[in-house]
């Protein structure tokens, strides 16, 4: 029962949601929206598990005085502070101009923007390491990337040809590659879903 009931629920819910897609009637539209809310609500409750996991890991580092445990104190402090600031004034706590939002704008945002901007460095070093004409495939990768990058660089008369070539690459082979990947992904993802719905793949449900 512990094993069979979940598999049965997946089957019923899955088949129902597939069929629902083809029925425009408002009663089914209602059920679709209701079901989507189920997913959201289950996800919200699960957040407590996440917070517990993070807290437990940090606390145990502090307790065992594991290397770098002092940093874990900062994590716990940041978490506790945000939770406090986010609730102590009721639903006004998250309005613009509160300390809650200050922490978001001046601690989270600069860090996330800087992490994101690291990509400028990483894209250069990845290009340097990977774009070597070792094999035919690497050469193709290298040459196309170069043509596309060169479209921003003034090359005199060659620029016109290069612009044309770059837009050809983007609209012809690039388009073909995307379409083929999408079709493959569509079939692969659908097959994965069907395997889950029909209970052929059930490892994600755990074992006893």
């Amino acid at each position, binding site marked *: 029962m*512990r094993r069979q*009931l*979940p598999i049965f*629920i*997946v089957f019923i819910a*899955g*088949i*129902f*949601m597939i069929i629902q*897609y083809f029925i425009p009637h408002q009663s089914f539209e209602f059920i679709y929206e209701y*079901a*989507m809310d*189920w997913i959201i*609500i*289950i996800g*919200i*409750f*699960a*957040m*407590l598990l996440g917070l*517990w996991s993070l807290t437990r890991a940090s606390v145990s580092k502090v307790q065992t005085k594991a290397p770098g445990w002092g940093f*874990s104190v*900062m*994590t716990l402090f*940041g*978490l506790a502070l945000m*939770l406090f600031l*986010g*609730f102590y004034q009721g639903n006004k*706590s998250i309005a613009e101009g509160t300390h*809650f939002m200050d922490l978001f704008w*001046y*601690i989270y945002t600069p*860090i996330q923007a*800087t992490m*994101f901007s690291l990509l*400028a*460095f990483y*894209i250069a070093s990845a*290009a340097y390491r990977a774009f070597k004409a070792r094999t035919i495939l690497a050469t*193709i990768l290298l040459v*196309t990337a170069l*043509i596309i990058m060169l479209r*921003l660089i003034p090359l005199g008369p060659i620029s016109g040809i290069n612009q044309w070539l770059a837009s050809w*690459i983007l609209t012809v*082979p690039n388009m*073909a*590659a995307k379409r*083929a*990947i*999408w079709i*493959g992904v*569509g079939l692969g*993802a*659908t097959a*994965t879903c*069907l395997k*889950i*719905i029909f209970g052929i793949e059930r490892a*994600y449900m755990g074992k006893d």
Partner: protein
Amino acid sequence: MVTDLNTALWNTIAMFLTFCIFSFLYKDNPFYKIAEHIVVGVSAGYFAVILYWNGLVPKLWDPVFKQGKWYYLIPGILGVMMWTRFSKKYSWISRLSIAFYMGIATGVAVPLYVQNYVIRQLSSTMLPVHFQNTTGIFNLLIIIGVLCALIYFFFSKEHKGAMGSAAKVGIWTLMVGFGAGFGVTVMGRVSLLIDRVIFLRNYFDSFFTWFIKYIL
């Protein structure tokens, strides 16, 4: 940026954290660790709070207690059942919630993937081929590219003979696509870095203006 003491202080923290993250490029170091650990705590707390106010309240609390939609208690109960994971003995109960979650997610996905990824892509590749102008020829090249790349994705046939040559053209097409994808992204990533450098420049600009004005 450095206008009043409050924003000056906050911007100084932001500047400090920006440098902490950049320092990671050289190597892992305590400054990076400070920024990393703080942002993990702050962002997890932020997310949980936002999820409560913008998720739980409008999706569960209001429907049940303000709009009288009692049937929203059902997903609420499923949500609470997730908490059985705190116990070893009863954690199997959470699988029922997971089962609903996965069943709904996979069921919704099936027709959407068939429609948007397979049929729509297929029908928009059914292009007219002719030899009057470049468009007709390019259409032919797109179709050949798609066919060969699909052959590359065949799992149950070895890439030998004609299949092998077609698969080779297929992977070349894919590689051209990847090279193009890499090339077009560079500009956007550089822009992100420019924005950060401009943030730092503006910070120090206003800091020095303030410094000269009030200290010297």
